[in-house]
């Protein structure tokens, strides 16, 4: 079973890298880019066969390692 974990900075947490990308896009002539937020995508291949159990394990992995919940939020989906 394949899982995709998406980790993004929480709303309100300043993302200086996203800001730098936004400026660079502006310099390339892409107007109207109001906001850029940068995050991580982590794909996992699990031996689980039960989707619910796999999702629960994925969320536990996020809580324990994959995300820093002080500043990040995460989503787990089955691919």
């Amino acid at each position, binding site marked *: 079973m394949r899982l995709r974990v998406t980790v993004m900075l929480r709303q309100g*947490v300043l993302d*200086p890298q996203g800001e730098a990308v936004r400026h660079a896009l502006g310099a390339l002539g892409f107007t109207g880019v109001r906001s850029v937020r940068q995050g991580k995508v982590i794909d996992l291949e699990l031996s689980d066969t039960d989707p619910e159990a796999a999702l629960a394990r994925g969320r536990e992995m996020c809580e324990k390692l994959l995300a820093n919940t002080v*500043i990040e939020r995460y989503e787990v989906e089955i691919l």
Partner: protein
Amino acid sequence: MRAGVVVFPGSNCDRDLARAFRRAGARVEMLWHKEAALPPGLDVIGIPGGFSFGDYLRCGAIAARAPLMRAVAEYAGRGGHVIGICNGFQVMLEAGMLPGALMRNAGLKFVCRTVTLEVATDRGFPGEAYGKGREIRLPVAHHDGSYQADGETLDRLEGEGRVAFRYRGNPNGSARNIAGILSENGRVLGMMPHPERAVDPLQGGTDGAALFAALFAAAAAEPALRPA
């Protein structure tokens, strides 16, 4: 006094820290991250700077889950003195030993220079070392040193005298200019600047030496409880 310095793959300030500890009069043991237990009888533990595990995932994230870090957190829990510097501070936050997070510098640049700090507390060994309000000069060298926490946490840290150091002129975008913080009991310090790089005149400054002297004095006066 006996001190331990934690070593991860990618630590690169471990020997500098060991040297600063020795200079303050301690015998030093290097502690490999895979060990599950600490040697008995340590008075101080240091978590050094560097790039543990190549900064993979997040700075300090993988190191914080190393077997030895569980023992270090347990040691802090029974009143042991611990200092985490730069990457060591990042590891401490990732391990939940101190609140908040360190993020990419606001200016996106790696900042490597000597900065002026204000000693912002009279508590713990930083307060003992310098006294509140004193200005000191220490080097910083980091890419991810922007300290962030929610407003409530920042208020609590300030209210409890747990902001140890503030930057004069913020090099990285840290909330409220915070450069280092203390635990509730004042015995665990995490800081981004490098006191171990300022203990000998050859390094260009000696303002860090007093911090190590005060650390060992505090550890002698208030040792950790024995393991249960």
